[in-house]
C-alpha cells in the first residue's frame, strides 16, 4: 500500500505540473468566467457603425409612404452611424413594370433590400414581400430591423383604421406572473425570475459534465503517462520494484486525485458564480455524497479501460483508434442531456442508468434534476457499477501485465483475448 501511495503521489505531482493540466483543466473555468463577464459588460454597446443600407420600397396600397418616411427618419436620427436609406419606387400605371425595376436595382447593387407592400395590406390578407439578392451576412441583423420597422408601420395604421386604443390594448395584454418556489420552511420563499428556470436546467448538466470531465480529462493524462513509461522503457525498471497491479493501482489513484482536485476547483468556481449572481441553487449533502461515489466508480471504470488501451499501444496516435468507440459511449448522455433533464424518470433515463459506463453521468443527472429515483434503483446501479469495475479491472490488469512489455506491433483483438485466458 505504501508503494501504491508513492506511485500515486508521483503521478499526481507530475500531472499537476503539465501544461495540458494547467491550461486544459484549471484555466477553463477561469476562461469561461472571463468570457461571460466580458460579454455581459460589452453587450450593452454592441452595435458598432456599419455602412448605410439602401432600401427600395413599392407601396401598392399607396397609403403608407409618409408613415414609412417618418419611421425611417426616426430610426436614422437614433442610429446616425447605422443609417437605412429609404427610396420609394412610385407606382404609376403598370405595377409589374415597377417591380421589375426594383428587382433590377437589387441585381445591380443600387439597393440592398427591395420591399413590396400588397395593395390590401391594410384591410386584407396582404403581405410584405421582402426581396434580397446575394445578401451580405453582416447585413442579416439590419434586415431584422427593417422587417420590424415595416411591420410596426403597418400594424399602427391598422390599429388606427380599426379605432383601437393602443395604450389600452397594451394594458389589457399585460398579465404579470410571479413564480415562487417555497422552501421547507416559510422564510425560505424565493421569487423566481426567468434565469431560475435556466439555472434549474443547467445545474444537472453541470453535475453531469463534472463527472464527464473528471473522467475523460484525466483519462488523457493516464494514456500519456503510460505511453511515456512504455516509450522511455521505464516500465521494466518500475516492475523490478512493484507488481504490475501496484503500478496500475497507483496510477489510477493518483489520477483520481487529479480528477477530484479539478472537480473541487470547478465546484468552487461555480459556487462563487452562484453567490455572485445571487441565485438559489439547492444542493443537498446527500447529493454531493452520491456524486462522489458515482464519480469514483465511474473514474475507476474509465481509467481501468484506459490502462488496458494504453498498455497495448506505443504512441498516442495509436491509442486514438481504440479510444474512438469508448468515447462514443461516454458522449451519449451529453447528447441526450436535454431529453434526460425533461423526463428524468423516463424509459431512456432508466435504461441508461444501468449501462455501467454511463451510469454515473446519468444517475447524477437524474438525481440533480429532481427525479423520483427509488433507493433500490440507486443501490442496484451502484452494485452493477461495482461489478463492472471489478470485471474491467480484472481484464485490464491482465492486458496491462502483458501489453506493457510489448514493443513494436500493436496486438490484435484475438491475441488480447488469449492474454485474458492466461492465468
Amino acid at each position, binding site marked *: 500500500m*505504501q*508503494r501504491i501511495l*508513492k*506511485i500515486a503521489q*508521483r503521478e499526481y505531482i*507530475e500531472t499537476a*505540473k503539465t501544461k495540458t493540466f494547467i491550461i486544459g483543466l484549471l484555466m477553463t473555468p477561469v476562461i469561461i468566467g472571463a468570457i461571460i463577464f466580458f460579454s455581459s459588460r460589452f453587450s450593452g454597446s454592441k452595435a458598432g457603425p456599419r455602412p448605410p443600407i439602401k432600401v427600395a420600397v413599392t407601396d401598392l396600397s399607396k397609403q403608407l409612404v409618409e408613415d414609412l418616411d417618418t419611421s425611417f427618419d426616426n430610426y436614422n436620427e437614433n442610429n446616425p452611424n447605422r443609417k437605412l436609406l429609404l427610396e420609394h419606387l412610385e407606382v404609376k400605371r403598370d405595377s409589374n413594370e415597377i417591380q421589375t425595376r426594383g428587382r433590377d436595382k437589387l441585381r445591380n447593387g443600387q439597393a440592398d433590400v427591395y420591399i413590396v407592400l400588397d395593395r390590401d395590406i391594410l384591410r386584407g390578407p396582404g403581405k410584405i414581400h421582402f426581396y434580397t439578392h446575394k445578401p451580405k451576412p453582416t447585413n442579416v441583423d439590419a434586415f431584422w430591423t427593417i422587417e420590424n420597422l415595416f411591420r410596426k408601420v403597418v400594424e399602427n395604421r391598422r390599429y388606427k383604421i380599426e379605432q383601437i386604443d393602443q395604450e389600452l390594448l397594451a394594458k389589457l395584454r399585460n398579465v404579470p406572473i410571479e413564480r415562487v418556489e417555497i422552501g421547507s420552511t416559510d422564510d425560505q420563499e424565493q421569487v423566481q425570475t426567468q434565469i431560475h428556470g435556466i439555472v434549474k436546467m443547467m445545474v444537472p448538466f453541470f453535475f453531469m459534465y463534472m463527472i464527464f470531465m473528471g473522467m475523460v480529462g484525466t483519462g488523457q493524462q493516464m494514456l500519456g503517462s503510460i505511453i*511515456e513509461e512504455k516509450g*522511455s*522503457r*521505464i516500465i*521494466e*525498471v*518500475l*516492475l*523490478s*520494484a*512493484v*507488481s504490475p497491479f501496484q503500478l496500475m493501482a497507483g496510477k489510477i489513484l493518483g489520477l483520481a486525485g487529479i480528477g477530484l482536485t479539478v472537480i473541487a476547483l470547478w465546484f468552487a468556481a461555480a459556487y462563487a458564480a452562484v453567490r455572485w449572481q445571487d441565485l438559489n441553487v439547492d444542493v443537498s449533502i446527500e447529493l454531493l455524497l452520491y456524486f462522489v461515489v458515482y464519480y469514483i466508480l465511474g473514474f475507476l471504470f474509465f481509467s481501468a479501460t484506459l490502462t488496458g488501451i494504453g498498455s497495448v499501444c506505443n504512441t498516442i496516435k495509436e491509442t486514438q483508434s481504440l479510444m474512438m468507440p469508448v468515447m462514443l459511449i461516454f458522449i451519449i448522455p451529453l447528447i441526450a442531456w436535454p431529453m434526460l433533464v425533461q423526463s428524468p424518470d423516463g424509459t431512456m433515463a432508466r435504461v441508461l442508468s444501468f449501462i455501467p459506463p454511463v451510469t454515473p453521468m446519468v444517475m447524477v443527472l437524474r438525481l440533480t434534476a429532481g427525479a423520483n429515483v427509488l433507493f433500490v434503483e440507486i443501490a442496484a446501479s451502484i452494485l452493477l457499477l461495482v461489478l463492472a469495475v471489478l470485471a474491467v479491472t480484472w481484464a485490464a490488469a491482465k492486458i496491462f501485465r502483458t501489453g506493457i*512489455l510489448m*514493443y513494436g506491433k500493436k496486438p490484435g483483438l484475438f491475441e488480447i483475448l488469449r492474454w485474458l485466458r492466461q492465468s
Partner: protein
Amino acid sequence: MNAVLLDNVCKSFGRLHAVDNLSARISMGSVYGFLGPNGAGKTTTIRMIMNIIRPDSGRIEILADGNIEQVKARIGYMPEERGLYRKMTARKVLAYFGAIKGVNDRQLAQRVPHWLRRVELADWADKKVEELSRGMHQKLQFAVTVINDPELVILDEPFSGLDPLNQDLLKDIILEMRNEGKTIIFSTHVMHEAEKLCDFILLINKGKLILDDTLENVRSRQSAHTVSVELEGDTAFVENLPMVTAVKSDGNRLDVSLTDADTQQFLQALMQRARVRAFEVKVPSLHEIFVNLVAPSGVPWRASDAEDS
C-alpha cells in the same frame, strides 16, 4: 542459501525455444557471469527470474522464496530495456525509485547523495534526466538499481553504453558489493569484462545451459590441453609422442594440443629428447573458451533470436 534456483525452466515464443529446460543454482555471496551469444536466452531467463514474463513450465525460487513479489525490496534489477522519467531531476528519480522499493525517507536522505557521489553525478543532481548524456544516464540507472541496498543484484548488459573509465568505475562498485557479501548476476557477451569480475560462469547457448562452473575450473580444464614450447634442434619427434593430438608450428615455436595427459609428463618427454628453451601452459582467454564452446564447428551463431522478441 540459494540466491536463485531454476528448476527445469522452459519458455517458448511461438516455435522458438528461447529457454529450454534450464536448471541452475546460484548461491549467495558471489559474482556470476551470465554469458552467451546474442539470442541465447539470457534476457528471457533474467526476465523470468524477475517475474516480468512467466515460464511455460518449471519452477523459479528467488532468495528462497517462490513468490518474487515478496522479496522485490531485497533485489536490485537493471533491465536491458531501461529508461528513467525524462522530466524529473536525477535526485528526484533516485529518491522516487528508492521510495517505491521501500526505502524510508531517513535512509533516502543519506543514500541518495551517497550514490550520486559514488557514480560521479553529484554535480548533475538537479539536472533533468533528459539533459544527461547517455553514459551519465546509465550510471544513474545503476544507482537506481542499488539504491535499496539489495542483497541480490541482477544486471542485464550493465556495461553497454559506457566508456572505459565508467566501465572501470562500475567494475569497482561491483567488486565492492561482492566484498560486502552481496550476490551479483550480470549478463554480457563481452568476455573480457566477465573475466575480470566473475567467480562463476554460467554459459548458455540456444536456451540450454552448456557451462556452469567457477572461472578457475573452466580455465584449468581448458588450459591443460594447449602448451606452447620452444625446442633446440629437430622437433619432428613431438608429433609422434603419445599424448600429442596436434602440432601447429609457428617459426621456432610449437603450439601443441594434448590429450588429457598431465603437462608435466609432456615436459619430461620433451626433456629426454631435446633441450627445452621455453615451455608455457597456455591459459586460454574466456573469449577463446566461449568461441570454442559456442561455435565448435566454426558455424557463426544466429544473431537474432529470442532476446529481441
